[in-house]
């Protein structure tokens, strides 16, 4: 199967032998007839790409290495992932209800959403500043309701932001807040389904309709 040839010398050596075989077949075929060389090139390349794709899809799903859960046993650790909906009433009410009657620790993560071009150019300052403003306002609201919450700006990819937060926060559950279906880019990208598949933590999905509430 296709393996990463640059992880060890043995894999690199194996890759070299495969490369020798690949080009030897193409050269032999091309020496018989040019068109045959081209056909062999296309066939071998397609086979190599196919094997590589198959090996990628058969890889077991990556599970994050969640550190041992910090904090006391009777404490409930809630990780909230939200961006534009971070100050929504529905989200505040669900966090309030989950924090009711327990010693809660709430971490709110605002992914620094950015355009692809700006991400590639490492131009993240604006996105992070905007996320920080939304986060500050949301934290102020949560604290005004007596919820002990802290927050941080996360990676622009919401799933990556969850994984980063889980590594340090060790949540009992994750709350993902999105716009309603049709207006939510995260729902279109199946962020909630992806999170349920990728993380071994209960995931709650909250829909916040900012237009309906006039927020």
């Amino acid at each position, binding site marked *: 199967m296709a393996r990463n040839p640059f992880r060890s010398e043995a894999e690199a050596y194996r890759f*070299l032998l495969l490369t020798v075989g690949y080009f030897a077949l193409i050269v032999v075929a091309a020496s018989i007839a040019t068109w045959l060389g081209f056909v062999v090139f296309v066939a071998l390349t397609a086979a190599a790409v196919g094997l590589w794709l198959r090996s990628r899809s058969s890889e077991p799903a990556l599970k994050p290495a969640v550190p041992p859960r910090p904090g006391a046993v009777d404490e409930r650790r809630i990780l909230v992932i939200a961006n534009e909906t971070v100050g929504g009433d529905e989200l505040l009410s669900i966090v309030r209800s989950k924090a009711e009657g327990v010693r809660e620790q709430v971490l709110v993560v605002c992914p620094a959403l950015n355009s692809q071009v700006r991400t590639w150019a490492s131009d993240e300052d604006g996105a992070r500043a905007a996320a920080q403003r939304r986060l500050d306002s949301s934290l102020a609201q949560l604290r005004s309701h007596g919820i002990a919450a802290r927050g941080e700006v996360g990676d622009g990819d919401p799933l990556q932001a969850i994984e980063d937060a889980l590594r340090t926060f060790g949540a009992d559950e994750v709350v993902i807040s999105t716009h309603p279906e049709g207006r939510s880019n995260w729902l279109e990208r199946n962020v909630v389904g992806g999170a349920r598949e990728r993380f071994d933590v209960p995931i709650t999905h909250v829909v916040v309709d900012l237009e309906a509430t006039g927020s």
Partner: protein
Amino acid sequence: MSAHAEGHHGPPIANKSSRIDSTVLGMFLFIASEAMLFGAFFTAYFFVRVVNPEAQAWPLEPFHLPVYVAGVNTAILLTSSFTMHWALQSIKRGNRAGLQAGLVLTLLMGLAFLLTQMLEYARIGFNPSDGAFGTIFFGLTGLHGAHVFVGLTLLTVATVRAFRGHFTPEHHHGVEIPGIYWHFVDVMWIVVYATIYLL
């Protein structure tokens, strides 16, 4: 805000915003930059071929490439990859003599490859200034030769360290990395040789 008092001492935990290990990512980026560098030269080479569609044989007259000499040189380089692999396998089994012998043989064969290429340059009968083909030929093979030189430098360091007893079956990272690089150089030569000399 009680979560701030979670008892972590020392520097803050690194924020890992990537699912790829940083060392592997570094190697990927290096290989990607190398692929783009060689890719630029190959693009120029194929452009030269495409704009000469009437050519019955390649390269065009009056250029002649020493295919067999380069073939022997290819065999030398491939054998050096085998000795490199043998050197690594030896130290993994605790065989230091095998490691030393493998590295010395790899080094000698790499030197032989470079010397043969220099002799080829001296006798090939055209210069980098003799048209686009001459420029691309010397550019591509010279670029590869520069990589062989870098590989030989890494191997020299690894060989000296091997004779000083720096490597053990558990700790041989200083041979593993030059080994990966050396195989990469060989892979690139296979592509260069097959494309320029044979196809």
